[in-house]
């Protein structure tokens, strides 16, 4: 495929406007506010259900037309959907963990990312060109597609909702440091922050910095530290402490 034109929500965007909260000591005002909140929530849920129905029906109609015209079979469509859902950020995490432990691999990844992905058994033929960029102490990259939602799906899976949102797409290029701050990350003042607008044929993979305290970690251990956001450039990988906390939290949950 030459180009992924993924324009979402085309002409079907709903805006609910402001929903101001007024605070009052008066219990009747409080009750009125609660009722209005309930009504608001109910309306919002109805809207989401309507949207889901709308897209579901439109998608099924399109699939039926494709089937009837003999352009695609049910099985081909099922396999395509399964392939999309089979893509996940774990593919990228595997590549980053390898780059952290194998300097030669990292050099090849930076020089020719498609070939390096191929070495790892990751097929990037759906992407015209994969470009890997390495964060350092002095340079940090962050990726945005201001035009739509171009994203290295074969490596990172489907893009997160915020990546496709207008606020991220506009603020990332007009106030990148503020954007990172919104997402809970402070870029150091002296670092060179490079915003990559993924607007054409390339898809980008950020190689985040290997966390401190992982010098004797194996590739499989390091894999667990690589977050999706760190490969988009809007955050750092987990620290060993954060991973430990996450493991304990999930242990308590089960």
């Amino acid at each position, binding site marked *: 495929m030459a180009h992924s034109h993924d324009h979402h929500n085309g002409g079907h965007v709903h805006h609910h406007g402001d929903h101001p909260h007024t605070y009052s000591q008066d219990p009747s005002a409080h009750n009125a506010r609660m009722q209005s909140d309930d009504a608001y929530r109910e309306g919002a849920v109805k809207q989401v259900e309507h949207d889901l129905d709308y897209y579901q029906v439109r998608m099924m109609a399109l699939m039926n037309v494709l089937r009837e015209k003999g352009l695609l079979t049910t099985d081909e469509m099922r396999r395509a959907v399964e392939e999309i859902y089979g893509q996940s950020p774990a593919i990228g995490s595997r590549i980053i963990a390898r780059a952290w432990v194998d300097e030669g691999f990292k050099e090849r990844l930076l020089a020719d990312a498609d070939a390096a992905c191929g070495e790892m058994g990751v097929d990037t033929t759906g992407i015209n060109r994969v470009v890997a960029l390495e964060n350092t102490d002095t340079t940090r990259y962050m990726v945005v597609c201001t035009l739509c939602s171009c994203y290295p799906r074969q490596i990172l899976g489907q893009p997160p909702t915020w990546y496709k949102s207008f606020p991220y797409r506009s603020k990332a290029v007009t106030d990148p440091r503020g954007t990172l701050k919104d997402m809970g990350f402070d870029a150091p003042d002296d670092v060179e*922050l490079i915003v990559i607008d993924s607007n054409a044929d390339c898809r980008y993979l950020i190689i985040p910095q290997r966390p401190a305290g992982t010098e004797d970690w194996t590739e499989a251990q390091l894999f667990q530290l690589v977050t999706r956001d760190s490969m988009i450039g809007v955050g750092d990988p987990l620290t060993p402490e954060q991973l430990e906390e996450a493991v304990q939290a999930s242990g308590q949950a089960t």
Partner: protein
Amino acid sequence: MEETTFRVGDRVRIKEMYPDGHHRTTYFVKGKTGVVNRYFGKYKNPENLAYGGDGLPLRELYWVEFDINDLWDHEAGKKQDKLYIEIYEHWLEPV
């Protein structure tokens, strides 16, 4: 080495064109001056592909680097902050 229209290090201006229809040059770099910092190779022209064409002739694709503060009237970042964007040859003119 492949002969290319522009070389790494060249100062270039993004043409201020507003053609009807699909193109991948974002409005906020039009008319702005930046520096070529990488050549990616030749790719099909999306302005033709978008309408079912074959995308030929292939177009040279460059990475153009801007100081992010040169793109906006407000202070968008620190003085060292940059924006890199992919631009096809027919949108570039030498400065």
